[in-house]
């Protein structure tokens, strides 16, 4: 009897398998990471980091999450680098990904400056504050909190729905004053979509909180930006995803300076992470139409939960 595996499952399974292949042998090595780091040649770590970031880049795109949110918990849990450098690199990884994806989305009117700028303004201020607080706290406490945040993100990803074209009957006064509305061409259905927003004040407040968390843990905050834009403010999903990248690039840039001035950015770690993630994201975008994204999303949630749990244990000193 022949067992057939759907083609759409093969690529996600292969990518997830490759990630696990990298992680599993690394686990015993990394249980005593600092000591092992002294034994293993530096270029091995750099090479593994590049390959790992490349695979993460593929998985992140296919799973519909930003690279930073996967990068920080996994690399901080399974590599010998101090959490400070991982967070610094994580912000730059998220920033680079958002920048490289930005131009076409801006030209199509999907990433919207009028929607993104007010949110980025409050988010960037809080992300600087978050970065300052995060770097002032003992690493073990940050690692513990990171574990809690990552497990919460995994839970949000399981629970949160999404809405392609939310209905906004009455835009709020603030959004009218800021003239936040737009029109874009939906290539899939070949029609125009006009949109407006509501609950802008609550959105601003949430972007403040998200910015703080992003800065503190070095995470790209697409996981939170998108539901706030889409489910709370009524922004169409594609505009929400694209504008989230714009907000993320501004917030990430603001917080990255804090990490740089505190000496938490080392090119030896940051550059291969950025390069790997950018290359992987490009491959991921090409694979996107060919794979079962629901399967890969479940794998991403499982990886997040696993790395969040590992982070939690590391934070507890276990």
């Amino acid at each position, binding site marked *: 009897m022949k067992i057939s595996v759907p083609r759409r499952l093969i690529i996600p399974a292969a990518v997830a398998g490759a990630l696990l292949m990298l992680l599993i042998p690394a686990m015993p090595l990394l249980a005593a990471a*600092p000591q092992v780091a002294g034994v293993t040649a530096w270029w091995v770590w750099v090479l593994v980091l590049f390959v790992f970031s490349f695979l993460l880049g593929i998985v992140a795109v296919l799973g519909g999450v930003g690279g930073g949110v996967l990068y920080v918990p996994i690399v901080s849990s399974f590599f010998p680098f101090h959490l400070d450098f991982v967070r610094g690199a994580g912000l730059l990884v998220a920033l680079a990904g958002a920048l490289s994806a*930005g131009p076409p989305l801006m030209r199509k009117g999907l990433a919207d400056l009028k929607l993104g700028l007010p949110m*980025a303004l409050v988010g960037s201020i809080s992300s*600087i504050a978050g970065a300052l607080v995060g770097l002032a706290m003992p690493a073990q406490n940050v690692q513990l909190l990171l574990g809690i945040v990552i497990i919460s993100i995994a839970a949000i990803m399981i629970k949160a729905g999404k809405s392609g074209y939310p209905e906004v009957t009455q835009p709020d006064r603030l959004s009218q004053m800021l003239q936040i509305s737009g029109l874009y061409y939906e290539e899939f259905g070949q029609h125009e979509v006009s949109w407006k927003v509501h609950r802008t004040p609550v959105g601003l407040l949430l972007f403040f909180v998200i910015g703080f968390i992003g800065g503190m843990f070095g995470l790209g905050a697409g996981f939170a930006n998108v539901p706030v834009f889409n489910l709370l403010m009524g922004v169409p999903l594609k505009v929400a995803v694209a504008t989230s990248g714009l907000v993320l690039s501004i917030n990430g840039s603001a917080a990255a300076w804090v990490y*740089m*001035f505190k000496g938490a950015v080392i090119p030896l770690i940051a550059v291969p992470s950025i*390069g790997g993630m*950018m290359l992987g994201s490009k491959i991921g975008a090409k694979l996107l139409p060919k794979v079962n994204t629901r399967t890969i999303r479940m794998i991403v949630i499982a990886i997040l939960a696993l790395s969040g749990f590992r982070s939690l244990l590391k934070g507890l000193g276990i």
Partner: protein
Amino acid sequence: MRNGKKEGGYADRVQLVYARMLDYVAHSVIILMAVGYFLYLTELLPLSVPIETISGNWHLSAAHLQAKLNLPCGWGCFTSPAGLLHGDIISYISVIFLSMATLFCLTSAVAVFISEKKHLYSAIAALQVLVLLVAASGIMTGGR
């Protein structure tokens, strides 16, 4: 062709200017980063701190590593012109350039908003530039 028309048609002038600037900056960052890292790893230029020294200490916190090795941080890498001819410093400058990318784009957006007399968004974008400039100045972090 039709898509090209559509793209331009659904974006304001400010978005198109922002996108063009972002395109230039993003490509320049990628090239600078690749060149800088190549110079760093191959040691074609001397290094201010050997790679082995960094890898031997990357388990330390940023504060401890700074205290031990006095690595370049923030604008500190520009303090000595001779220091710029180091592979690791050039790689670090590429990271600085990445962090400045958004600042370039936002500055171009401010100019467009002002030219179109969109006062509210001129103010918001200018405030955003100010926030990034404050962050980049190192005032908040006591940086160099």
